[in-house]
């Protein structure tokens, strides 16, 4: 069972790999604001949500997929835990 840090790292690795064009080398950590900072467009949440759904076998409800819940890796860990990801 992955701990919070491992989940956060998985998310950060994915973002660093898939959003390299948007980040342009900007360093990110688990608390880096992604949506509110403008580093990642809010429309991009959809593919990030699909990645999380597939990786953690959950279905994040649309109502839970808010800009605040997706604003950082640590916020996403909180969301996944609330949805029952072990």
């Amino acid at each position, binding site marked *: 069972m992955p701990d919070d840090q491992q989940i956060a790292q998985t998310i950060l690795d994915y973002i660093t790999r898939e959003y390299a064009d948007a980040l342009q080398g900007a360093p990110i950590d688990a608390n880096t604001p*992604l*949506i509110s900072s403008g580093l990642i467009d809010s429309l991009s949440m959809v593919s990030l949500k*699909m990645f999380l759904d597939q990786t953690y076998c959950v279905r994040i409800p*649309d109502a839970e997929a808010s800009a*605040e819940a997706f604003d950082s890796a640590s916020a996403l860990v909180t969301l996944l835990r609330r949805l029952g990801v072990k």
Partner: protein
Amino acid sequence: MKDPETPPVVAPLPSGSQPSYETGALRLALGLAPGRPFNLGTLLSDRLCEQGHGGRLALVWENHGGLRKDFTFDDLRRYSDVWAATLADLGIVAGDRVCLFLDRVPDLYFAFLGILKLGAVAQPLFSQFMADALEVRLADADTRAVITTARHVEKVRSVRARLPGLAWVILTDVKPGAAPVLGAGETAMNAESAPARAFTPFPASDDSPSLLHYTSGTTGRPKGAQHVHGSVLSQFATTRHVLDLRPEDVYWCTADPGWVTGTSYGIIGPWAVGATQAVFEAGFSAPRWYDFIARHRVTVFYTAPTAIRMLMKSPPPAAEQLVSLRHMCSVGEPLNPAAVLWAEKTMGRPFYDTYWQTETGAIMISNVPGLPIKPGSMGKPVPGIEAAILDAQTHRPITTPGAAGLLAFRPPWPSMFRGYFKAEQTYKGKFVGGYYLTGDRGSVDGDGYYWFVGRDDDVINTAGHLVGPFEVESALLRHPAVAESAAVSKPDPTYGEVVKSFIVLRPGHPGSDELKLDIMNFVRKHLSPLAMPHAIDFVDKLPKTRSGKILRRMLRAQEWGEPVGDLSSLDD
């Protein structure tokens, strides 16, 4: 202390009256002598300085990190002169297209005015565009210079070899001795750190080209809608009347200047009025947006239904955060009644929906102060604008209340686009029977209120921005697993519409959720987050006519739960 003889920023309106939309009266209100030519860049900056208002606050800029900078109209004049002189030094001349590929940094606004002062044509592009989307638009415009930052320059560099007309790439955030190192044909310029320069503005006429805004259509590549210096008359009139903006206001327009709202009402309209603009260089965050309104005491707020629906999903503001607001408007896509009602309850006032397009340059139909709002309606045509609902076959006006037809306007009006760049036939095709056809369908009720029905073509309006299905399909075909594809709109509770793709896979590429995600990211990385399909269906074949044309309308109708219509041309 202001001289008591100093003229007002704009001529005051008689109490209780509507602003005139008559061009002669508008020119007088802007201090322009009848028939006298003017340069739009000068009008938006120097004019107020020459009237003794140069010390007024023009721009309050803040970024996500909390850095704040204030700029007066004197600053706008100085920094735009520096940009105009610098571009002239680089050999940019009147008529050349200069692309602004920037986030909402201060130099975006200064350079925009400088380009206009030079008589060149500003070509703003959304900075989230990726390399393919950027290349198509720069190639079509034969752009001479791109102004950008280190964050986005690699996208420009990656396509530059295929853009022989691109003479200069100008970076605004290069610090002496710091990376990135400038390459051939690249230079650095930052107006705030450059010495003052005097510049004599280009003697523009009302019909001189000012702006080239790219917009998407059903077929072919995006088209550059050409605007002119004289468009300010429409933008000025509607900014005063519809946005109800006054010189003493603090105004926040959340639109990016890469889109027409961000220039018509994020630069031109408010500075023609002489108001203070607040710009937040950051992404979406409901708490931070409410905090921004509170701290800068924003009085007038112009945003989009998608942003409003995202606010609706977030915790509500504290009551004291919005006390400064006195007027709010919305643009980009139909504002659903639930959003109107939510705003009244949560924000203390309704959003006034406005309707217009890249091509119209200014608001055409709107809810305005004093006109009762019918939630879900786009309101009534603004003074001076003749709107009509036309029969799709005869192109004659439909007079039956509530009957749907083609939404059209009777030309001309000052901010009407003057062409699609290098696409004259496409431009001419937008005018039929003495009307400009918007490509939207609508209806008008017995009280004269207009209602949006839908697009009359296959263009996808996602989060208020038009996405062309051809551009998405072209990008999809570059993915190694994709043999054929069709892109259509799909309803979405937050974004209004999103892109959905139907894909026929190449042999040897089995469909899977992982492949769907890979394809989504592929489109996002090549075009933009806007163009990324939010849903993908793998299919064995696509519905086509006997001549081989994909029947997108059939797929679209399925997504929207609408009748698919006449299928007599369907093959097999």
